[in-house]
């Protein structure tokens, strides 16, 4: 990808609208290449028409988020799993 991108830190606000945990500190596994990396380190394109987060290793899409009036759409098909840090 040659377009300028942001990174997963920029997802903190939009995802904070949905989740009660900070998803940017979660570790995610890319469904395409298997790279395991903090959500904050994903390469993020957008914000219009939506936020698209790509794997820093293989550039495949791992997360997409669109905020529409009255709803948000979150597509996680590029993510195998998320490790969420939680207190005991």
């Amino acid at each position, binding site marked *: 990808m040659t377009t*300028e*991108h*942001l990174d997963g830190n*920029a997802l*903190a606000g939009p995802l904070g*609208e949905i989740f009660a945990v900070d998803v*940017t500190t979660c570790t995610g596994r890319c469904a395409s290449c298997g790279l395991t990396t903090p*959500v*904050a380190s994903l390469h993020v394109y957008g*914000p219009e028409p939506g936020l698209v987060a790509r794997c820093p290793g293989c550039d495949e899409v791992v997360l997409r988020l669109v905020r529409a009036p009255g709803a948000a759409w979150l597509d996680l098909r590029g993510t195998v799993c998320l490790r969420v840090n939680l207190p005991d």
Partner: protein
Amino acid sequence: MRRRLEWRAAELVKIVDETGTARTLRFRVPGWPGHLAGQHVDVRLTAEDGYSTRRSYSLAAPADGDLVELTVETVPDGEVSPYLNEVMEIGDQVELRGPVGGWFVWRPASESRVLLVAGGSGIVPLMSMIRARRRAGSRVPFSLLYSVRDAERRYYADELAVPEPGLDVTYLYTRQAPPGSSRAVGRIMLDDLAAGGRPAVAEPDCYVCGPTGFVEASADLLLTLGHAPERIRTERFGPTGG
């Protein structure tokens, strides 16, 4: 567990000019829950016709009760920054939500050395870390490399000129250096990151913030020098700013 994010009303209570194009805005945000150094906020402006737009800005200082500070660079033709920097007056309000972002943060309890690498306005969250270190009385060695076009473009110049034990500040001028500077002007290079007692073997936590190209280049140089990927944290300012 924290609650989901909500927009809060923020009243502008103080303005400090940093450069010809940047200023620090202090807001009073009733009910502010506090934040960590490195975190940011989203700012939302809504026009009378209902059109609204938002931008993210890094917090420039540690939490001080319900007062928070942002340093905003005016982006010509931007939608939000010209309003914040050229239109807003003391007593005016915007909507603000946060703090957000728990990854690009420094915690005062950390005992690791710290290497801060700033490109232009990327200094803002790193300055918050420097101020948090000072406030906490931390003795952890901090080293700041601050890449900036020329001396006029420096944020927080007076504050960073005050000697502080354990804090090392180095400017990397990219266009014009003040008289007497030994380093040739230019972009950040391997030697800049390797010099000055910042070896990778000391295993510092590295925080890199700036425009995307600067961050990519700096992070690659740090990897080349042997810094472990998990010790390099990055935050990019993109083209969508403004």
